[in-house]
Each structure stands twice: as structure tokens, then as C-alpha cells.
């Protein structure tokens, strides 16, 4: 028998009021503004934009405030909001060669043209807590030098010129969009990249790490990592030409991977690619490693049965909102389901007991 019950409304309202109070914290401490979060918790904002799959720093900062700093909750808020926005169109592919680079490094060529530009990085810090920050320490002013002229050349192009790396064939094919059509497997590389760039950082990192530890090893070098602003250009039908509709900060990682050649390809280097909203280099490197691992089939490599080679496994578990939705729903009332399980167990037990008693009597 199914019995619908109501109730809990007052409890829920009171819980939400208390949540709001807890979010605010002690009122003798100044309240955080959305602008403060946007400008001082930038990397959290970047993660929320990347995994929320909506570039809007103000909204991401608001979501972080509302979610009390729970980034997956904040990403959930952004994902919910973005479904309310009408789709105005799509941009031309962003031209990362024209990026205004804050950072650009290569782990493969020391003397790469354009140089090794470190940018505002945590690398080479000692990871010691800085107690000056707790004591309202003054921040030193960043040093300046004459700006570097011209676009940063792409490292993989140098290898490509000599045919030492597999060429990325340019095309203007319309990519499939996982936000517009249900996922189908095999997904293909464009859809894989879309799923990875919005996938959970921890999950994609874990998958990438598994390839480094030997589960589908692909010997990556970071050929190039660049972070900076790119213009977003869109064709405007009513004007008949394209204009920049904004600019976004992105992180791009290109890996150069060992490849021994196959029946169809000569020995050459191959590529993995990562491109993520914001300054998000851990995610971009992870994405590139997983992208490369998932390309085993097109490159004629063996399927080693590694998790990172399994497209369906990776793509269907990379999304933290899908994952958390399914995971967290089990804490919501399942009284009826459980009642039936309970009755079943009781019945089996009583039957088992009855037969034991019967056996004992005989």
C-alpha cells in the first residue's frame, strides 16, 4: 500500500532560515561581498565557471557566496541558472595563438621562441603558510618590464613543421553539443573535449594520474601551457560580419606524447589537448592527458583495459552535478522503499526460523 504523507514544511522553512544565518556567520565579522569573492577568490570563481560551463565571474562569485564556499553546490547553482538563458548563438573558435598571455611555459624546449613566461604562479613557492596574510600584511607590487611584442608562437607548430608530430586537421564541422542532445557512444573527440572541460577537476585529475601511474600510460610532456585572455568573436547575422562579443581568460595545455607508430602512421609524437575557462592549469593538464588516453583507437594503439581509455566510463562519470545528484538523492526520504525491504527481510527471517524449528522438532 502506498501512503502519501505531507508535513515537514515548517521544519524545512526553519532549516533554510538557519542555513541563511549560518551562511552569514557571526555578525561582528564583516560580511563578504560578491566583488571580494570575484577579485580575491579568483581561482574558486574560475573553477565554478569551468565546471558550471558558463563564463560569468559575477554569477560564479554569487554562487560561491550562496553555497557557503561549497564549490560543487555553487556549480550546481550555475548549471541550473544557465538552463534559463536562451542560446543566442555560438562563437567562432577562439584563437589561442592570439592570446594575451599572462603565463606561457614549455617543458620541452628551454629556449622556446617567446620564452618561458612564468606569470602569477604557485610554482616555486615553498608551500609554507604565510602568516603575514593573516596579519593584514602589505602586498609587494608586481615588477614590470617592457611588454613582449607579437603573438606567442605555438610550440607544437615547430614540431609540426618537421612532421615530427601528428597534424591537427583543421575543419569547420559543427561539433556535437552535449547540452543539446543526449550523449551517445562512441562520442568522438569534440564531445569528449566538451565533457572533459566541464568535468569535475578531481575526477579528471584522478583519471590523468592513473595514466601516469601505468593504467594506459602515454608518456606526456607539457609541450606548452598558456594562460591569458582571448577575444570571443561571433558572426552577427543582422550586420553581416563578426564582432568581438567579449573576452575570456582560458588555460590551454598541449601535451606532446610518445608514439611508436602503427600500421598506418609513421613514428611521431602525438597530442593531447586541454582548454578550460579561467586560470585552471591543473585541470587543463589533466584534460590533455585524459584526451590523449582516450585517443587510443584512432591512433591504432592497444586497448589495455585501462579506465582512462574507456570513453563511456570517463564521460559518464566526469560530471560532478550528475554524480552528486544521484549520490545525494539517497539521503532523501525512501521510507516506502525501505519499508518493503524491511518487510521482505522479516518474512525471510521468519520463514528461515520456522524451518529451523521444524528441523529441530523432527
Amino acid at each position, binding site marked *: 500500500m502506498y501512503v502519501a504523507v505531507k508535513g515537514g514544511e515548517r521544519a524545512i522553512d526553519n532549516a533554510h532560515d538557519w542555513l541563511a544565518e549560518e551562511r552569514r556567520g557571526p555578525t561582528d565579522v564583516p560580511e563578504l561581498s560578491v566583488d571580494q569573492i570575484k577579485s580575491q577568490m579568483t581561482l574558486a570563481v574560475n573553477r565554478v565557471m569551468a565546471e558550471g560551463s558558463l563564463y560569468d565571474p559575477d554569477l560564479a562569485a554569487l554562487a560561491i557566496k550562496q553555497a557557503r564556499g561549497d564549490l560543487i553546490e555553487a556549480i550546481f547553482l550555475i548549471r541550473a541558472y544557465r538552463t534559463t538563458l536562451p*542560446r*543566442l548563438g555560438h562563437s567562432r573558435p577562439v584563437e589561442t595563438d592570439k592570446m594575451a598571455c599572462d*603565463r606561457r611555459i614549455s617543458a620541452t624546449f*628551454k629556449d622556446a621562441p617567446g620564452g618561458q613566461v612564468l606569470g602569477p604562479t604557485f610554482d616555486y613557492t615553498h608551500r609554507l603558510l604565510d602568516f603575514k596574510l593573516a596579519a593584514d600584511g602589505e602586498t609587494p607590487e608586481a615588477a614590470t618590464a*617592457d611588454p613582449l611584442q607579437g603573438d606567442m608562437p605555438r610550440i607544437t607548430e615547430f614540431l609540426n613543421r618537421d612532421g615530427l608530430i601528428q597534424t591537427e586537421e583543421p575543419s569547420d564541422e559543427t*561539433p556535437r553539443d552535449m547540452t543539446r542532445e543526449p550523449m551517445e557512444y562512441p562520442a568522438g573527440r569534440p564531445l569528449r573535449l566538451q565533457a572533459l572541460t566541464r568535468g569535475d577537476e578531481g575526477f579528471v585529475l584522478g583519471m590523468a594520474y592513473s595514466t601516469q601511474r601505468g593504467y594506459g600510460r602515454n608518456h606526456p610532456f607539457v609541450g606548452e601551457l598558456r594562460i591569458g585572455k582571448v577575444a*570571443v568573436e*561571433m558572426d552577427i547575422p*543582422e550586420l553581416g560580419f563578426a564582432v568581438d562579443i*567579449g573576452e575570456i581568460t582560458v588555460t590551454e595545455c598541449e601535451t606532446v606524447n610518445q608514439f611508436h607508430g602503427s600500421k598506418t602512421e609513421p613514428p611521431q609524437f602525438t597530442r593531447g589537448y586541454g582548454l578550460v575557462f579561467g586560470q585552471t592549469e591543473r585541470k587543463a593538464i589533466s584534460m590533455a592527458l585524459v584526451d590523449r588516453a582516450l585517443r587510443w583507437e584512432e591512433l591504432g594503439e592497444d586497448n589495455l583495459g585501462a579506465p582512462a581509455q574507456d570513453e563511456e566510463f570517463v564521460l559518464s562519470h566526469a560530471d560532478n552535478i550528475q554524480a552528486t545528484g544521484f549520490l545525494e538523492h539517497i539521503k532523501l526520504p525512501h521510507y516506502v522503499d525501505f519499508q518493503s525491504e524491511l518487510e521482505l527481510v522479516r518474512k525471510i527471517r521468519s520463514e528461515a526460523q520456522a524451518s529451523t524449528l521444524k528441523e529441530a522438532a523432527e
Partner: protein
Amino acid sequence: MSNLDPAQAARQSRMSLLAKSEPSRLAALFPALADVPAHTWLRTPEVGAVMVRGRMGGTGAPFNLGEMSVTRCALTLPTGEVGHAYVQGRDKDHATRAALVDALMQTARADEVQATVLAPLTAEATTANSARAAKAAATKVEFFTMVRGED
């Protein structure tokens, strides 16, 4: 689409500038324009999302990277000029101002609008970009080779 006439090229560059400008800066500069004529809407300001695309390997086939918020509108002045705006973010007033600037640039007041609004925005964008580029340049590594003791 690459062969634009000078008027189209100028419009492309001002619309791109307005799209990327800080809403607060345009709002601060705009009131200096006296007697902005009333406008009628061709398309009232609408907040939406544009799917941003990237290329595999930076140069290959396109894929969908994620969306960005964009506000667009179109309006017409009493004298018939049509102003368009596509600006980053969700600020409808910002989009309206951008479309008015676009429309006014097609009138006899173009020089005034250029000097009052567009020139300062261009200068500020250049300053901000070169300030960042200067900080980046200061973090460029200068390698030097240690003299080795073999000879």
C-alpha cells in the same frame, strides 16, 4: 566576411570595444554626451548565452568549450540610424548604452562620441592590457649557463 568596407570595419572595432568594456566605465563616460535622442526598440535588451567554441589542438576541428553570458539589443534613433549591441555579461543598461553609441556614431555627432566615449575606453583598454603584459614580461626567465669545470 574579411573584406569589410571602412564603415563596417570601424563599426566592428567599436562594437568589439564596447562589448569588452567595463559596464561601470561606459556608464561613467556616457552622461557626458548631451541630449541623447530618445530611441525606439527594434529588440529590447535580452540576456542570453553564447556557446564558445575552441579548436582541438588549438588549430584543428571545433568543439564546444562552454557558454558565456551576453546581452544584446537593437534600437533606432528618430533620424533612422540603427544601433546594435552584443556585450559580455548581463547588464541591460550597458547594452543599451552600447547600442546608443553605435547609433550615434552613424550621425553627425560621430566625432563627439568618438572623443567623449570611445577614445577614453580605447585608451583605458590599452593601458590595462599593457600593464598586464608588462607584469608578464617581468616574469620571463633569463637562462644563463654556469661555467663547467671540465676545461
